[in-house]
């Protein structure tokens, strides 16, 4: 097999300009080579820039600096040999299955007969025989994503990009599609040389990939690379499989050491008012605290274990766990979630006591909440407009992130009864609603 990389990425950086003239860094120091015969997984939580990297490779966006080359050529705009499968399928609802598959070839102005031949072959390969004249709305989710695969394969790409292709499907359908894909891949029946798979599902990554790049956030960067040497087909119950999953959890919960920790806010040590707060309700926090406090965990939970117990993917579990860590209700380390004394107390307490504990931690460990409270206390009217805080937040983050952060802080503050918020007038105040 040819070992020269098909895709070469070095020192790629992506930032978006902010209205105040600064910039928002979403990807930094990306280095990656993809060789023929590999399935490379980009694993990370939302906001870790893995989808952004995929779009850079697809030519749908442009890097701020650094170099991306495909077969030695720099990537400007979508390249002919790179095709993409989308998370929500992105089928054209007004085109039939056949027309959807053929569109990439139409765009290349291929001869009619050739288009027909190749489209039918792709439809056949992916198991869509008999569905040629159906419209996407007539198909189930699984069949729609098969069309997505056929549409990408028909252009005979060298690299297939997959953006969480199974995450919009139910568990059973996703599993069927994964196995079918791996079968075709291992039998070499697909006209592709390499695959890049974006996912936030650790087991999916271990199941499918030869290499897994674990992404961290703020800014998005590669934390570590893990080679998966297990033979295909892989078994989820195999101890070496479980071990690898466990190891990735540990990687993803590792605290950055030394200088790196000070520079990055991801683990919350230097948390200021400019941190983006996740959309995690007080209910989810209470729920996870209770689950970890109860048997069989009794205060310390192994993350893969509790993820499968609660049927949560890392995308759902990590934000809650990290919020608990930020609020000092729990410690997150070595793939474990361990409750603090106050975390345990919260889990045992009644409603009023919970609110008191929550209020204390909110004002002590979430600077934005403390800031809002202080502003309200200082003003004679005890009223402050929302726009004032939005403006402050937008010095640090995008408009969207500022809105979301404020929604979160409103909801936490309401639960703690630290302050009140009137959506109609868009103002914070200290008085309780009547």
């Amino acid at each position: 097999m040819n070992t020269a990389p098909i895709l070469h990425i070095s020192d790629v950086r992506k930032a978006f300009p902010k209205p105040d003239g600064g910039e928002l860094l979403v990807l930094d120091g990306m280095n990656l080579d993809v060789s023929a015969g590999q399935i490379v997984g980009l694993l990370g939580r939302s906001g870790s820039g893995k989808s952004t990297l995929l779009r850079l490779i697809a030519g749908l966006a442009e890097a701020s600096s650094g170099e991306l080359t495909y077969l030695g050529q720099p990537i400007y705009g979508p390249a002919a040999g790179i095709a993409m499968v989308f998370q929500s399928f992105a089928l054209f609802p007004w085109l039939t299955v056949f027309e959807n598959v053929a569109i990439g070839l139409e765009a290349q102005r291929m001869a009619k007969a050739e288009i027909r031949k190749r489209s039918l072959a792709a439809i056949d390969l992916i198991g869509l025989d008999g569905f040629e004249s159906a419209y996407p709305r007539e198909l189930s989710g699984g069949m729609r994503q098969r069309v997505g695969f056929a549409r990408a394969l028909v252009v005979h790409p060298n690299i297939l990009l997959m953006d969480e292709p199974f995450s919009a499907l139910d568990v059973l359908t996703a599993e069927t599609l994964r196995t079918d894909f791996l079968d075709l891949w291992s039998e070499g029946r697909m006209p592709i040389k390499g695959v890049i798979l974006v996912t936030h599902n650790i087991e999916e990554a271990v199941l499918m990939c030869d290499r897994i790049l674990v992404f961290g956030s703020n800014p998005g960067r590669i934390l570590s690379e893990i080679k998966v040497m297990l033979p295909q087909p892989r078994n989820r119950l195999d101890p070496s499989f479980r071990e690898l999953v466990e190891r990735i959890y540990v990687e993803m919960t590792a605290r950055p050491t030394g200088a790196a920790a000070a520079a990055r806010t991801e683990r919350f040590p230097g948390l200021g008012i400019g941190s983006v707060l996740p959309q995690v309700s007080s209910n989810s926090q209470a729920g996870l605290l209770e689950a970890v406090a109860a048997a069989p965990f009794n205060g310390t939970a192994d993350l893969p274990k509790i993820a499968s117990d609660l049927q949560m993917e890392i995308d759902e579990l990590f934000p809650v766990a990290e919020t608990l860590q930020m609020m000092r209700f729990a410690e997150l380390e070595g793939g474990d979630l361990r409750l603090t004394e106050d975390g345990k107390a919260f889990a045992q307490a009644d409603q009023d006591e919970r609110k008191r504990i929550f209020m204390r931690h909110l004002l002590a460990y979430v600077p934005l909440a403390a800031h809002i409270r202080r502003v309200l206390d200082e003003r004679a009217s005890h009223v402050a407009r929302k726009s004032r805080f939005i403006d402050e937040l937008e010095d640090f983050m995008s408009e969207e992130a500022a809105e979301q952060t404020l929604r979160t802080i409103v909801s936490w503050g309401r639960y703690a009864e630290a302050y009140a918020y009137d959506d109609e007038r868009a103002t914070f105040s200290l008085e309780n609603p009547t």
Partner: protein
Amino acid sequence: MPSMSEAVTTRRLETFGFLRDLASRWDLAAFVVVIGLIAFLGEAARGLFAPLAQLDVTPLSLDPIHLPEYAARTTLRMFAALAVSFVFTLTYATWAAKSERAGKLLVPILDILQSVPILGFLSLTYVFFMSLAPGRVIGAEFAAVFVIFTSQAWNMAFSFYQSLRTIPTELSEAAESFRLSPWMRFWQLEVPFGLPALVWNMMMSMSGGWFFVVASESITVGHTQVSLPGVGTYIALAIEHKNLRAIGWAVGTMLLVILLYDQLFFRPLVVWVDRFRVEQEPGARQPHSWVLTMMRRSRLVQAGKLSFHAVVLWTSRAVKRSDAPPIEAVARPKRSLDLLWVSLVGAAVVLGLWHIVAVLIANTSIGEALQVCGLAVLTMLRVFVLIALASLVWVPIGVWVGLRPRAAEFVQPIAQFLAAFPANLLFPFAVYAIVTWKLEPDIWLSPLMILGTQWYILFNVIAGASALPAELRYAAENFGVKGWLWWRKVALPGVLPFYVTGAITASGGSWNAAQVTELVNWGNTTLRAHGLGSYIADAAVAGNFHRLVLGIAVMSLFVVVINRAFWRPLYYYAERKFRLT
């Protein structure tokens, strides 16, 4: 790959008998319809190139036997205008959506144009178009088509613009990553995506257009009288002759025409565009159309469709494809070009302002301007009072009907039909009544303003009440919420977003209608209500240019301000607070 377990089958079994291979009966039906259409168009277009004098030689007759021809002429004008509006929409809206620079100006222009009372321009556009084709009927025809166009185009362009701006990111990325050329992208992604909303707006435009086509066929500009053969002119003639029976015939004809184009044109279109909807969940109820079924089963029509598709693909291939340019070049427009654009726009604004001011300062006084504003306030009062009255009547009825699916199914089409019906055809009956019973025109002419537009309130409220989730109604019942409390806490908040939408449309329509309802004739009797509408109508008849401009300017100003200061905030409020997602 293993066999599929999903229970979806789409294969259609088709058996071909040898007779069927020749022509199906749907082919025959389609053939008749197509040929009939051609004949109709030929007949209707025959008089276009006749000299204008011919209109006087063959005067219109009140004999109902001519009504089919007149109706055909009127309908043809409508569709001509609709076609122009469609082309305008695809170009203007695309330009506005694709060029950020142009969009900054084009979108507000659309917004203003939507609020300008077009009827007032009637005489101006006639003068302009007649000068293009002096002495020919076609000049007047162009003017009529243009007036209808101005009543149809804006909301269509707006809807397409909105669609272009809201194309789902993934679809757009898919088009880009499979390297569709811009031309292909336009026909394969953007137009199909915008079509459902566009067709809905075309129906609204068509309804609105009838009002103007009737008003625009017979017009006096200064001392020239232009009467294009059509239903509008027929009505005008009937009014002149005080012939109530002829008016009855015209009303009947219009009912038939509206029914026909709805069944033959819009129903098939609505059913057809249903497939373009992006929400891919199988809808609860799919619309049906017998005409579309016929067209789908007919091989003739299929062949036509396929050839259109082939043209799209062929042009897609023929248009030269540039290799994807670096994204950066597209993303950042040049500063100097920006500056040039801004200064061009600035110059145009200054020039326009100067013209308006020159016309107004030279010929009018502050006193007159104030007087016109006073008249505008009168008209505004009428509009608001009437909207309030109509709401009092139609909101409870709409809620009652909307909550009963059986009744809604029956009433909803009627309400939509009534909204489409050109209410000005009915004015003569009301005027006859006012003249006969010697009623006060200042009060009794007013209801005419809302005669055609109140139905928007009704059918929007019905739609809102039908959309009220059954669970909410059960909950209200379960907790014993009844009577006034039920209206206050359940029904009214539930339908408010829909009601506001309807009321905005009704209000806009009423302002426009003011120009034909505040000044009406019956034979040689003229009834006048004091207001801005009659002021503009007077100025138009007298050919008094500066008064016309003043009247239109004030009316535009009032409509824009009322929309911005009252309706729009109300709409956003209702959307935010009461829209059930």
